[in-house]
């Protein structure tokens, strides 16, 4: 067989440049530097198991809404409603939990066949009630995401900004209407385990062992699943393709509207999953969560993580690193007794710097 002039397939030629290394590992490098600096500035506290698991616990729900935001930004869209969908799902979770418990307790007290069923306060009954209310929360997130997608693909609103801005307000209002504006407190243990549970490793008689928050493990598992989905499935690559060139993707026979609907639905579902973690952490459903502006933290994490606002660029791992950078900056500045107001200024500057790096990279790519 004659060998053509084409070089063999697996030769990474000029691509292995410094700029490529910076593109791939720049964000990770920034995280490592940040951690080193914080370790030096706060040697007693920063790098302790207690502090790290505290940070992990605090950023878990942000990590999930950021992942949803990342999927949407990957298609060159934006989802302003992730924070308020989380808030609404949180209220639906707590409310449905209380309602189902109330119904079951009432029925149990009056029914003659109740004797053969678990008591309302028994672990089995509470477990089932928790599962049902989790389904209600996920259903809420799904529905909100579906409506967001339709606003863009069916109503053909000019930009997802508008539809999701509408959804932000609707979900905030609904969260307050359903909860009556005040927190719904007290949730069963089975429900709280995801947000508040810990797995303790290496406990011996002398040491307390390492505390790993369940929420952090949930986040890692979901991130891994999403990574497989984006890098190793057809639909995952189509999401990247839509972000790179929607027209080409359409011509290639891909149902682009289907892909767009899907990312908003996934974003809604991830926001609902974040609500489950949030509920566990604070043992209640509070409408304040819908109004805290978490969507802005999510957008910031995604951009710091190296995703491009123009779509098609960014990684799941980058997003996680972006979330960690945000979390460590807040935590580190707290440890150093820097005022919360300065923290906001610092994060603002980092967001602008991250976006500017993306601009520089695009310019460099065009001139190459």
């Amino acid at each position: 067989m004659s060998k053509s002039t084409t070089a063999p397939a697996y030769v990474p030629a000029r691509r292995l440049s410094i700029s490529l290394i910076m593109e791939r590992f720049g964000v990770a490098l920034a995280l490592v530097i940040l951690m080193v600096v914080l370790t030096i500035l706060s040697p007693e506290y920063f790098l302790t198991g207690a502090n790290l698991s505290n940070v992990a616990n605090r950023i878990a729900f942000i990590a999930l809404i950021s992942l949803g935001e990342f999927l949407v930004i990957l298609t060159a869209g934006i989802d302003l409603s992730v924070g308020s969908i989380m808030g609404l799902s949180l209220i639906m979770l707590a409310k449905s939990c209380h309602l189902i418990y109330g119904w079951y307790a009432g029925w149990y007290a009056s029914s003659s066949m109740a004797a053969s069923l678990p008591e309302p306060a028994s672990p089995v009954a509470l477990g089932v009630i928790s599962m049902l209310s989790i389904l209600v929360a996920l259903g809420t997130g799904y529905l909100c995401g579906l409506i967001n997608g339709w606003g863009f693909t069916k109503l053909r609103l000019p930009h997802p900004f508008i539809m999701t801005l509408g959804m932000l307000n609707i979900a905030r209002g609904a969260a307050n209407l359903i909860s009556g504006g005040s927190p719904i407190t007290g949730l069963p243990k089975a429900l709280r385990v995801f947000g508040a549970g810990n797995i303790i490793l290496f406990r011996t008689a002398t040491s307390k062992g390492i505390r790993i928050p369940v929420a952090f493990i949930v986040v890692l598992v979901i991130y891994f699943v999403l990574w497989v989905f984006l890098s190793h499935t057809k639909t995952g690559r189509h999401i990247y393709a839509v972000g790179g060139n929607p027209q080409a993707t359409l011509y290639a026979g891909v149902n682009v509207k289907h892909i767009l609907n899907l990312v908003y639905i996934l974003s809604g579902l991830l926001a609902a999953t974040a609500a489950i973690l949030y509920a566990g952490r604070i043992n209640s459903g509070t409408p304040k969560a819908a109004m805290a502006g978490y969507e802005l933290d999510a957008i910031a994490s995604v951009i710091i993580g190296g995703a491009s606002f123009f779509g098609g660029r960014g990684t799941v791992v980058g997003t996680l690193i972006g979330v960690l950078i945000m979390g460590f900056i807040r935590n580190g500045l707290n440890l150093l007794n820097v005022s919360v107001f300065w923290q906001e200024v610092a994060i603002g500057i980092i967001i602008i710097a991250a976006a500017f790096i993306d601009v520089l990279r695009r310019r460099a790519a065009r001139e190459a």
Partner: protein
Amino acid sequence: MAEPVVRMEKISKSFGPVRALQNVDLVLNPSEVLGIVGDNGAGKSTLMKVLTGVHQPDSGQIYFQGRRVRFNSPHDSRALGIEMVYQDLALAGNLTVAENIYLGRELTKKRLGGLVKLLDHRGMAEGATRVLERLKIEIHSPHFQVETLSGGQRQAIAVARSVGFDAKVVIMDEPTAALAVKEVSKVLDVIRRLKEHDVAVILISHRMPDIFEVCDRIVVLRQGVKVGDVPRSHTNMDEIVALITGAQKEALHLCQEVA
């Protein structure tokens, strides 16, 4: 004479009062490179949109390999192996060469005992390499991101994408318009390679030198009417330009199929 791959007969198409095409006949033979030229609005693009099923003709027939066909959408024409290469719209720059070539028809493998279907990255890289080698397109690796490549390489990959999957007819609309001189020859090389692999090519271009370099036959459209259909060997640039502008009413050496 072998049966034509495509035969279009008396194609007419109007958009409101505008008669975009009037009784246009077109024949495309196997492994032929056919150039279509004409001024803006002469009907070149409309004719190709009729052939690919984007537009449906008001009257006239299309035959594919002797069989009468009716294309209601680009899907129908693609199913028979008619592929259009769009100038800038064909590729996603953020994806790799292999991913672009396989976009919309990715290879998958069952993993975890058939539980999940994951992408076969290796298979696609190998398949892409084979297609590129067949067309002698020089890309170092199918793992390069398309946006890091030159315009000519991108255009070549857009072609590879269309022929990688048994295209019989490739339509290229101004493939060299945005390219540097050095890059143009690469695209023309790819066109010649297609011919070698028994793919018929329709090339729409404003660049006369390109047309004369690769085409076997040239069709001239003017104001929706075919005014010339000549073998390259029997004409010259001056005559073609005169036909395009209307300075000359009819070609001197018509092709036998038309005459």
